[in-house]
């Protein structure tokens, strides 16, 4: 597990320190258009002669920031909805679960594509489109867990002592949900990184001149046959990050003994 951890840490540090590195991700060099890797530019240049390594690091910052913001928002909203549905039960639970059913009826990132399409491109709309679609997983998981938790002795005890509903949910149920939610969050971050890249690849997410892995692949594919290094470098980076997160998620699931 050392290698996946090292890979994840590498990208996290790259994302955090990118502004300190004096990168020039937007500097155009017309004499270096699509130039391959060299001593001065380890990973080569893109279709505008921009340094790929700089753009890759700057792109990691944007991709991971988007994933972090969306995760913070959807985790809070999804968990809250799941807790309310699972604890309250009855008609509220049925309505909320039918809503999640409708969201789950759109396969993969189709709904995010649809939202991004009507909202228009740009980072705020990208974040909104991803938030609108990725709370569902947290809600379903929390609801299922909360339904069994509300029968537990300590919850019944808290109820008979007159604890408020909010207090029971936050103090007596949420801590017991931490392990499965943490595992869910790990896999969700990996799929958010892919979703952000997919939308940007389709031209619906992050717009030029901002560096984003998806948008870089979009440009790279256009020149795939003359300059394959562009696509290879960006794709390998994306794959390394996603694979690292997924492997760590599997490990985490084993350690915390969470069943899916």
């Amino acid at each position, binding site marked *: 597990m050392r290698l996946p951890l090292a890979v994840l840490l590498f990208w996290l540090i790259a994302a955090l320190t990118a502004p300190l590195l004096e990168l020039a991700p937007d500097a155009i060099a017309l004499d270096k258009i699509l130039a391959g890797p060299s001593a001065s530019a380890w990973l080569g240049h893109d279709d505008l002669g921009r340094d790929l390594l700089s753009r890759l690091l700057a792109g990691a910052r944007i991709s991971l920031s988007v994933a972090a913001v969306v995760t913070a928002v959807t985790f809070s909203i999804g968990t809250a909805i799941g807790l309310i549905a699972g604890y309250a039960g009855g008609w509220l639970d049925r309505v909320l679960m039918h809503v999640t059913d409708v969201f789950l009826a759109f*396969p993969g990132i189709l709904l995010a*594509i649809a939202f991004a399409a009507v909202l228009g491109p740009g980072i705020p709309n990208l974040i909104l489109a991803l938030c609108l679609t990725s709370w569902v997983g947290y809600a379903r998981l929390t609801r299922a867990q909360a339904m069994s938790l509300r029968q537990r002795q300590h919850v019944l005890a808290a109820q008979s002592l007159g604890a408020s509903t909010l207090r029971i949910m936050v103090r007596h149920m949420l801590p017991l949900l931490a392990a499965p939610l943490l595992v869910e969050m790990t896999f969700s971050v990996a799929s958010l990184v892919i979703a952000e890249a997919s939308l940007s690849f389709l031209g619906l997410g992050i717009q030029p001149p901002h560096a984003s892995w998806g948008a870089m692949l979009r440009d790279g594919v256009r020149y795939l046959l003359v300059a394959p290094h562009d696509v290879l470098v*960006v794709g390998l980076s994306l794959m390394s990050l996603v694979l690292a997160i997924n492997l760590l998620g599997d490990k985490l699931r084993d350690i915390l003994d969470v069943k899916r």
Partner: protein
Amino acid sequence: MKAMSALAAGLLFSRLAGTALTVFGVLLLTFLLVHLVPGDPVDVMLGESATAADRTQLRSDLGLDRPLPAQFADYLGRLAKGDFGRSIHTHAPIADLLAVRVPATARLALLALALALSVGLPLGVVAALSYQSALDKAAVFAALTVSAMPHFWLGPLLMLVFALWLPWLPVSGMELPGAILLPALTLACGLAAILTRMTRASLLEVLNEDFVRTARAKGLPERVVILRHALKAALLPVVTVVGLQLGSLLAGAVITETVFGWDGVGRLLVESIEKRDYPVTQACVLVIALTYVLVNLMTDLIYARIDPRVRSGA
């Protein structure tokens, strides 16, 4: 016996009712999409240069000047007659566009499914039977790696290998023979990876069960134990996965078709977004989502037919 079939009928009815409710929600959400456009959708669709007359015309064509519930009722009424409206761009009926694009996507998805099944199932079985061997570990690692490769990276990679370095297959397009292979392979890889992992996990679990031990204790040859007893039970959960993943294939087709210039529903969706042709966008999203819902329903029904535990209502 009679009580059991009543139970099964009840399950079937509640499943159908749930699906109907979901379909209604999908229709409502797709209908509301156009109303999520920031500002006036007519302005966004027609652009700055449109005349006031054009705007008014489009607004009344799309019914946007009427109250929302009336618009929704109208939308459902037209869909019931198979009328998806017209493209704002080409004025062609969207149903005609779909009639061309849906079969192209269906061909791609079915070939991908066939490829994935013919690789994923045997690989999963072999991996499970040689549990913890080098072969098993290699299969698990390959499956993990492939599932971390999104279509917009795997597609170009296959293009590089099979169209550039080994010039065997056409890079993109639909005309040349064999052009379907690369996009189908791109879609198939992820599914094959999931099938390998599922088949392997499922078979490993079944191999520890009592009925397998009984079959072995009876002295049946290992081949019969695996093929006739273990595999039959192990493949049941895989049926559900295939159903769920067939829908994801359709979503994956959006990107794969764009990468390879394959004129299916997915590419139509992306083109319509680029042209701000919202009625077409709406229709594509609806067709993909409804297909997914129907495939899931069918999977559940098939599962209920083939699993003796569900069939008897136990």
